[in-house]
């Protein structure tokens, strides 16, 4: 079913799901939503399975003409969305009618919004995913961001949406100051004691060089023992690379599959959404936790998702 016609595409609007797995061995990046929490919740609110494809909307949102009555939900950054000229309530299912216009205004807080539509955005799966990897033109809508005049289709609608606003406890506040929890390794032994202390005690600033591939930070230099180069190996999401200049780069959704810089630590999964919403100038601190604490925080995250899932009315009732 045709759901939207793109009047204006916005700054960078792409189709993303949870990413493309199984193909990194061929050099294909995972891609997928930068803020997986917002993607998941948008899907649940629109009555979808949690991993359906959504529109990931960066900073300046698109202008979309609704072509058929449907349920939508917008989560993530507050980019001042409107529905037919009236402010659109985020973090809840909203009915959009044929002829309505979905539009966005000034970014209020955060970087990336997620627009889910009942049935999920329908583009062909490429290597098992609908995510767009723009650099190589893979997936999404012809491998590229949306253009004016594009038509967006949705899959079959099944379950019912949640048309009440989600309780505040499930709605993250995006702050200009973030503490990201990390698990040290795989190459923290390539840094001096002083280097690790710098990394874990100093404040870093998000630079303008922050995109879907990685987030480059500015701040005190992190000291290596002897050089920043390693024999290239894999790069997990959230890996904190420190090249020879001593400044950390956090590797994100569109990161290349392998790389040759030392990785001092990895940001834990549940803290990546907050980083995805950080803007240039925002401040970041790192704190180290161990694996079991990381696991506990993940369980908490899944419990949160499960509780939201229970709020959604089921098909029968």
């Amino acid at each position, binding site marked *: 079913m045709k759901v939207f016609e793109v009047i204006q595409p916005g700054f960078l609007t792409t189709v993303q799901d949870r990413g493309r797995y199984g193909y990194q061995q*061929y*050099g294909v990046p995972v891609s997928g939503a930068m803020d997986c929490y917002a993607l998941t919740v948008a899907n649940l609110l629109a009555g979808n399975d949690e991993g359906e494809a959504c529109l990931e909307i960066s900073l300046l949102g698109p202008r979309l003409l609704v072509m058929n009555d449907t349920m939508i939900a917008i989560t993530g950054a507050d980019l001042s969305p409107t529905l037919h000229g009236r402010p659109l309530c985020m973090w809840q299912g909203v009915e959009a009618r044929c002829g309505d216009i979905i539009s966005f205004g000034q970014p209020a807080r955060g970087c990336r919004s997620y627009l889910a539509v009942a049935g999920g955005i329908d583009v062909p799966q490429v290597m098992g995913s609908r995510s767009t990897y723009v650099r190589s033109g893979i997936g999404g809508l012809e491998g590229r961001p949306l253009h004016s005049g594009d038509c967006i289709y949705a899959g079959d609608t099944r379950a019912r949406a949640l048309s009440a606003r989600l309780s505040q406890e499930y709605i993250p506040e995006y702050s200009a100051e973030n503490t990201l929890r990390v698990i040290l390794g795989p190459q923290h032994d390539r840094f001096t004691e002083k280097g690790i202390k710098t990394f874990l005690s100093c404040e870093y600033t998000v630079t303008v060089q922050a995109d879907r591939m990685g987030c480059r930070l500015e701040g005190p230099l992190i000291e290596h023992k002897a050089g920043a180069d390693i024999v290239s190996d894999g790069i997990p999401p959230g890996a904190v690379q420190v090249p020879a200049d001593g400044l950390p780069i956090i590797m994100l959704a569109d990161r290349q599959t*392998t790389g040759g810089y030392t990785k001092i630590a990895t940001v834990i*999964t549940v803290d990546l959404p907050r980083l995805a919403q950080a803007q240039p100038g925002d401040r970041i601190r790192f704190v180290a936790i161990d694996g079991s604490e990381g696991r506990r925080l*993940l369980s908490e995250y899944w419990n949160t998702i499960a509780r939201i899932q229970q709020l959604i009315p089921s098909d029968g009732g």
Partner: protein
Amino acid sequence: MIYDRPKFLPGGDSALFVEFGDGIDPELNRRVRELHLAIQEAGLPGVVESVPSYRSLLVYYDPRLVCAEDLMAELDPLARQEGESVFPPPMVIEIPTIYGGHYGQDLDFVARHNGLSPEEVICLHSEREYLIYMLGFIPGFAYLGGVSPRIRTPRLATPRARIPAGSVGIAESQTGIYPAESPGGWRIIGRTPLELFDPAKEPPALLQAGNYVRFAPVSDREFIKIREQIEQTTYRLKQHPFTGEARDESV
């Protein structure tokens, strides 16, 4: 250098590195690929995918299905068994390549830099079989080892904005093929009409880690003919079993 025992290193809360040693070495790399294959054969619960590189395997797992400790316990025996997995015999993939001219604008530079004639560079580059250590950098890009020290050439000081797909280049002791148009600083000595990456194919990459590459010089006419055959999907990739011994004098 290969470690006595493989090391397990954390890659956050959902990934684990199994590191077999340090350096670039065919034997070390073979251990990585053996574990990669063994994991696929064993179908370990909770493993999402694994990514082989020169000396380590990055194993992505779903922590809802398996915890790091249990995964390590499953991986350890697999990582320590040597040469027991049934490796498919490695193949040598022939890469038809037109050298020099506008397809390989740096061929003359590589020759001059090494005190050779362009013909000697072509001969040295195409006479040997290169082990595919890993894929990475961009989809379908293969890291090849074993370039003759006689044709090593440094990268360009300023990378070019656009290198055409299929370009064959040299950077220090590495040689490689650009699967897609991209910026790049390698010295370009030729071009192949082959398509290195096609998302619609399974697997999408023409070159697989563990196989070998051999460049086969072709003429302008052959290049065009092969390109037409590829467009008409009548081209048959030339490949044969590898019979030599893995070597890498570049490292």
